[in-house]
C-alpha cells in the first residue's frame, strides 16, 4: 500500500474540516483546526520517509548510513511551532468573545458591536 500514508493525511484533513464546519462551539472549532493542521505533519513525514532508514542524527550513527529526509522533518517542526502559536492566539480571541458577547457559538455571533 504505497498510497495509504498520503490518504491518511487527506482523511485527517477532511475530518478536521468536517468538525470545523459543523462546530457549535469556538473552542471545539479551534481544536478541529488543530486536527486539520496535523494532517500536514502526517503528509510531510510520509513524504520524507525512506524504507530501512533511521533518524537524520549522526551523533552515534556511521556517516553514510541511510536516513530519512531531514528537510521535511525541519518543515514539520516549523509547522508545529506555527500551529501552536496560531492556536494560542485563536483561543485568546475566543476568551474575549465569551467575555464581550457571552457566547462561543458562531451561530449566535451575528451582530457587530464596537
Amino acid at each position, binding site marked *: 500500500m*504505497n498510497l495509504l500514508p498520503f490518504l491518511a493525511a*487527506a482523511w485527517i484533513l477532511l475530518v478536521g474540516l468536517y468538525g470545523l464546519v459543523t462546530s457549535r462551539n469556538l473552542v471545539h472549532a479551534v481544536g478541529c483546526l488543530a486536527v486539520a493542521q496535523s494532517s500536514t505533519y502526517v503528509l510531510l513525514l510520509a513524504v520524507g520517509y*525512506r524504507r530501512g532508514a533511521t533518524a*537524520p542524527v549522526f551523533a552515534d550513527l556511521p556517516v553514510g548510513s541511510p536516513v530519512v529526509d531531514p*528537510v521535511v522533518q525541519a518543515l514539520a517542526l*516549523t509547522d508545529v511551532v506555527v500551529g501552536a*502559536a496560531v492556536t494560542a492566539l485563536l483561543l485568546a480571541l475566543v476568551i474575549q468573545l465569551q467575555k464581550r458577547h457571552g457566547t462561543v457559538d458562531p451561530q449566535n455571533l451575528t451582530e457587530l458591536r464596537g
Partner: protein
Amino acid sequence: MSRSVRLWLFLSAGAVIAVAFAAACTGLPHFGTPVHPYGDRAVAAALSRRTANTVSSVNFDLRAFDTLGEESILFGAVLGATLLLRLARDERKEWPEAERVLPSTRLFGALLLPVTLLTGVYIVAHGQLTPGGGFQGGVVLATGLHLAYVAADYRVLKQVRPLAVLDVADAVAAGAFTALGVAGLVVAGAFLANFLPLGTFDRLSSAGLVPVLNAAVGVEVGSGVIVLLAHFLDQAVEITGGGPARTRFDPPEPE
C-alpha cells in the same frame, strides 16, 4: 445558511477535495522511496558544517532565515495573546486562595522540578548533536516550570515565575536572533552566515552558530510559552468580573 445546507455544501466540497487529493497522491513518488535529492544534499551540507543533527542544521544553518520568520510568528502570537488577554476596565484581579496539597505530591514536585529544568537545558544545549534544540527544549523548560502549579498551587507558581523578567527575555531573545544575523552580515558577508569556528564534529562546541541560535530560540520559546500560559491561567484563576455571569464555556443546547 442553515445547518443542513452548510453540511451538504461541505460534503460536496469534501468529496471534490478527497478525489483531487487521491489523484494527486498517485503522482507522488512512492512511499518509502530511496530517492531524496534534497535530503541527501542537506545531509552532505550538515556534515560539511560539522553538525551531527541534520534537522538542527537545516533549521539554524541552511534555512536559518526561515527560522527567523518562524520565531517572529511565535513572538507575534505571544504579543497578540498578551494584548488580547490584558485586564479590562471592568475586571479585577483576586489573589488566589492557598490550596491543600498532599505532602507526597509536594515532595515529588520539589524533587522533579530541578530535574525537569535540567532536562530542558540539556535538550537546548545538545540541539546540534542529538534530536532536540531550541524549540523542543524551550517547551520542556516552560512546561517543567508548571510542575510548581501541578504539585503545589498557583501562589507557588507565581513565586517561581518572574513574569516581568520573562517578558523582557522573550523580546531580547527574539532580537538576538536578528542581531546574530546582522553580525554574520558584517563579519562573513551574508545575513545569518556562520562566522564562528566550526569546532570538532560530535562535540558540544561543534557547528559554529547553530548552538548559539539554538540557545536564543530556547530562551524565546521557553519564556514565550510561560508568558502565554500565565495569561491563560490568569483568566482562569485570578481575573473576576466583566462580561455576563456565565464564566465557563457551556456546551450548546441541542436543537
